[in-house]
């Protein structure tokens, strides 16, 4: 019954055995419901064509094959650019967007968290306010701005806004407020270190959990970006766009291939999340909005 035992930092009143069992039961049920579509997708991705037509469909694949993954490129070659192109596009925007977000947001977060200067209060408020709405709400004027900057239909249209995600800045700032102590910064200044040097050699190494979190979050949103309104050339489209296209075909014969694409889409962010989840939780510990 080790699973049900309270840990050192928790409640004084442990769950009764009965309560513990009820709790585990509901979690088990809920977890299975949540996992069902995933399990079915993984299964479908490995089903040979004949098995996709078995009725009723098998939840778990019987004769797994890799044909669907090989089939991805052939399905797409018929009418669109090869999926390899989509993958390269997704990798490109993800790499540049993540890099920009981490560096830009950390630089800004550092001064917002640790310095008082004319305008700092206002900027802090603006950041919290901007969490309260979503970029899609203003996608129309954003489109007009991008058209004027001549970056519509280029990867920059996805990369640049991602660099300035306020969620990332907010999380980084909250983390720095708690974890970076002003005395250390002052000591470094007395020793004559430049601000840039303090930032890269003292602040950033202390904030590893936070920038790992920023990497993961911006990775997730960029890797899942369809390009939507901003990109219309097939050659510039991303992997999620390819998925959307195959899925909207909707035939059973294609469901194996579309499941395979969905897996390609889910696995990279999932694996990176699993690898860094303890860092992310550490960052989230300081995520709250103070009154």
């Amino acid at each position: 019954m080790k699973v049900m035992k309270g840990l050192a930092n928790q409640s004084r009143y442990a769950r009764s055995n009965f309560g513990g069992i009820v709790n585990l039961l509901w979690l088990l049920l809920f977890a299975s419901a949540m996992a069902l579509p995933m399990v079915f997708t993984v299964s479908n991705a490995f089903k040979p064509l004949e098995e996709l037509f078995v009725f009723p469909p098998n939840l778990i694949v019987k004769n797994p094959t890799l044909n669907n993954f090989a089939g991805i490129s052939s399905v797409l070659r018929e009418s669109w650019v090869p999926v390899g192109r989509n993958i390269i596009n997704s990798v490109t925007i993800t790499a540049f967007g993540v890099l920009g977000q981490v560096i830009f947001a950390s630089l800004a977060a550092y001064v917002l968290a640790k310095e008082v200067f004319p305008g700092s209060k206002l900027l802090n408020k603006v950041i919290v306010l901007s969490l309260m709405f979503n970029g899609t709400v203003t996608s129309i004027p954003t489109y007009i701005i991008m058209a004027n900057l001549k970056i519509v239909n280029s990867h920059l249209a996805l990369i640049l806004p991602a660099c300035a995600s306020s969620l990332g800045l907010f999380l980084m700032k909250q983390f720095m407020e708690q974890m970076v102590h002003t005395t250390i910064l002052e000591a470094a200044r007395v020793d004559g270190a430049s601000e840039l040097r303090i930032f890269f050699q003292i602040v950033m190494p202390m904030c590893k959990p936070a920038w790992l979190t920023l990497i993961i979050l911006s990775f997730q949103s960029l890797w899942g970006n369809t390009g939507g309104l901003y990109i219309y050339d097939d050659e510039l489209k991303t992997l999620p766009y390819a998925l959307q296209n195959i899925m909207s075909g909707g035939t059973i014969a294609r469901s194996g291939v579309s499941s395979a694409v969905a897996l390609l889409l889910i696995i990279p962010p999932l694996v990176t999340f699993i690898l860094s989840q303890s860092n992310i939780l550490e960052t989230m510990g300081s995520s709250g909005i103070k009154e």
Partner: protein
Amino acid sequence: MQAQKNKVSVLKQMKKKKHCYLFLAPFFILFLLFTVVPVLMAMGLSFTSFNVFEAPKFVGLKNYVQLFFYDDLFIKSFSNTLTIAIFVGPLGYLLSLVVAWSINELAPALRTVLVVLFYAPSISGNAYMIWTLMFNGDAYGLLNAWGKKFGLINEPIQWLTDTKYMMICVIVVSLWMSLGTGFLSFVAALQGIDRSLYESAAIDGVHNRWQELWFVTLPSMKPQLLFGAVLAITGAFSVGEVCTNLCGNPSTDYAVHTLLNHMQDYGNTRYEMGYACAISTFLFVLMMGANQLVNKLLRRVGS
């Protein structure tokens, strides 16, 4: 005299803190361009008629009058948006909180596995499209197949095109994805609560788990509760892509047409930017209003 002096000292301070502005510049230039200016533009353009090719023409409140009094589809998409938001927002939020609380005292390894499992659906963009495999209208859709096998239905149900079921499908899928960043924040907050708080609460007369939850646990994670609420509200009102990707655009009888869809219809298909901006401004005000309201409510937790 005093004002001038203040001005000089502000400038002096700004000069002294020059590096601050340099550090802020890359982020805030982009933030201004892609977040602040679009909001202001949406508000401004909502009073104009604008088709991108000609200069915007001021029309006063015409767009809003049209929107509120003559556009039936707007009313429909507004009520759809509210329906989705009312289910997905509070339910998703509660679900995140209850699940985070339920897994809090499990052994670390098991807890980690469950966190990954619950968080996974919100992880990757439009991977929710795998739900089309569940909701597929023919007999091979998992739901129809199982329904038939267990004798619950005779004929396959057109989940994504029958107006009776479309809304439920959209809500289920949105809820499935609702254990996101807010959920992680709750998990982290619960893990970080100091045991000494519980000890002193016990002395002060807290006698069971439920009292502990209300008087100690929730109040001490208030900042995270606020953060989660902001994300939940923002997410719940911006459901739109899920609808078009699952049910098509336009969906049957516009049964799951949302404000976001309506806005994009006018902006990206018809190039009536002024009108689209009026919808966008309305949605913006709606989100902000809901956020302020919930913030006020949440401040009362534990009192």
